[in-house]
């Protein structure tokens, strides 16, 4: 599936998404607040994604450690393994991999859910039932993804580091305490804070794109499928673009 058929389409699409996102700030976060729905979305989006994020995070930490080890050994600096893995996970791999997994799970589910709600007129039904669907469906989901992804990332990082600890212990012996001391020795606030902040944007992107694609789903099951699919593709691409922007920005303001 080609994401962009031509430039005009691309520009139109960008404009529409921007307007959709703008609507979030101009209308979505004004009363009346759908607190109950927000909580239930947070539960579904955050808590329910945790096992997946935890599992992938664990494997990632383990594999990363095992992959990095040989080259560090060849430089004779395998004792620096926790430091390297720590920085890699906290600064980049944790946030990005978690966000991509999240986009895959949540972006597609939002796209498909709202898409099918759209084509079966459930969204219209909501509006008729005295509910602003943008606030009820979009704002809650976007806020939930924005708030839950950083938490998932933090927990994922922690589990990843635990995986890395096990990875280190496969071929040598380190105490958990010493491992974390080493990891945190080289970490600074400027490693963690931008990493957390960028996951806020990742989460926002996943939420907005999922909702936009769902809301603009065309009729039929195929339309819903396309919505889900393009929500994942587009939000994954956006995650990388935001990642690039963050690293440039943090460099610019000298946080690196």
């Amino acid at each position: 599936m080609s994401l962009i058929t031509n430039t005009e389409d691309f520009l139109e699409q960008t404009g529409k998404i921007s307007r959709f996102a703008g609507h979030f700030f101009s209308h979505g976060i004004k009363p009346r607040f759908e607190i109950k729905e927000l909580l239930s979305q947070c539960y579904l989006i955050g808590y329910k994604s945790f096992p997946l994020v935890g599992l992938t995070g664990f494997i990632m930490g383990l594999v990363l450690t095992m992959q990095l080890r040989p080259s560090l050994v060849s430089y004779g600096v395998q004792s620096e393994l926790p430091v390297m893995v720590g920085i890699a996970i906290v600064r980049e791999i944790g946030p990005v991999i978690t966000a991509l997994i999240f986009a895959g799970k949540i972006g597609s589910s939002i796209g498909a859910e709202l898409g099918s709600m759209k084509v079966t007129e459930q969204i219209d039904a909501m509006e008729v039932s005295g509910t602003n669907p943008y606030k009820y469906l979009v704002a809650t989901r976007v806020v939930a993804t924005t708030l839950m992804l950083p938490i998932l990332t933090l927990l994922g990082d922690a589990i990843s580091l635990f995986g890395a600890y096990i990875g280190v212990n496969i071929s040598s012996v380190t105490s958990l305490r010493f491992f974390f001391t080493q990891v945190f020795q080289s970490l600074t606030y400027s490693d963690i804070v931008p990493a957390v902040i960028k996951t806020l944007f990742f989460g926002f992107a996943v939420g907005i794109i999922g909702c936009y694609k769902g809301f603009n789903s065309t009729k039929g099951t195929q339309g819903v499928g396309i919505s889900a699919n393009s929500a994942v593709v587009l939000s994954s691409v956006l995650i990388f673009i935001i990642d690039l922007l963050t690293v440039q920005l943090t460099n610019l303001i000298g946080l690196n």
Partner: protein
Amino acid sequence: MAKQGENNIKLGLFVLAGLLVLMVAFYMIGKNRNIFGSDFELKARFSSLNGLMEGNNVLFSGIQAGTVKSIEMVNDTTIEVTLQIDSKVKSFIHKNALAAIGTEGLMGNKVVNIQPVKAASFSVSNGDMLTAQKLISTEEMLQTLSKTNNNIASISEALKATVLRLDSSAIFDILNDKTIGPSLKSSLGNINKASKNASDMTMGLNELVTQIKQGKGAAGLLLTDTAFAGNLKQAITKLKSASDNANKLTLQANMIMTSVNHDMNDGHGTLHALLKDSLIARKISISLDNVMKGTDGFNQNMEALKHNFFFKGYFKDLEKKKQANKALPVQ
């Protein structure tokens, strides 16, 4: 509705767990960066920082004791570094402690090392200025080591010649030879320098060994190689004895020189010298023996060092340079 409540509890746990991770991470970093530590500060002035930056660690006797808070140029040759010191450590630092800039490992971050001095002194108070110690880098140390080695080699060369002459010719000739005085003197000067170098070296190497023991060794490489640390320690001990020997020798030779010079200048001249002949000859010969022994030991140490894999590269480079220098005039 009960399910909703249950879900909210799970969500609450989930969010709290996330925040907990964030807080622990911040705390762990804060502990390292001393954000939650004290506002206790010490100062030290250096002529060069060798790349020390704000936020670098401060070690006291090798343990984490704080961070570099600020760096300020006082004038073109003086830089004042403010150290933020952990409240737990501050009471152990005395006013006469020395601050030096060192490296975590061979190529790691710069650190400020605060070393206690044996002599008694009061505990530091907030804002005290610590005496700065000139930094000794591994590079410098190795250079000094090689210089010392060369010096000792040339001294032993010169002394050897003297001894040969002493052995072959009559003591008379020596005494008559006007050149022997100054040459002996310059030899002694060299020995002096060499022994000073050697003692500097010892200190430097000692520090290196301490660092290695602390696990701050060459990028983790030395960490594992305890055998190397042992070798180095041994080398240093030998070096120390060599330099002690050299010292002793210098004293003895100095005494002889003074007496010889004295005699000659007094006009007692040859006769007196002759009287002392046997004594002098024996003394000089013993001294030279000692020198030989000292240099031998030193050379052995140098050999040992050369064979140690860690310094191999350095000596190879030295050799190459030498060869290049030799080759140059031929071209």
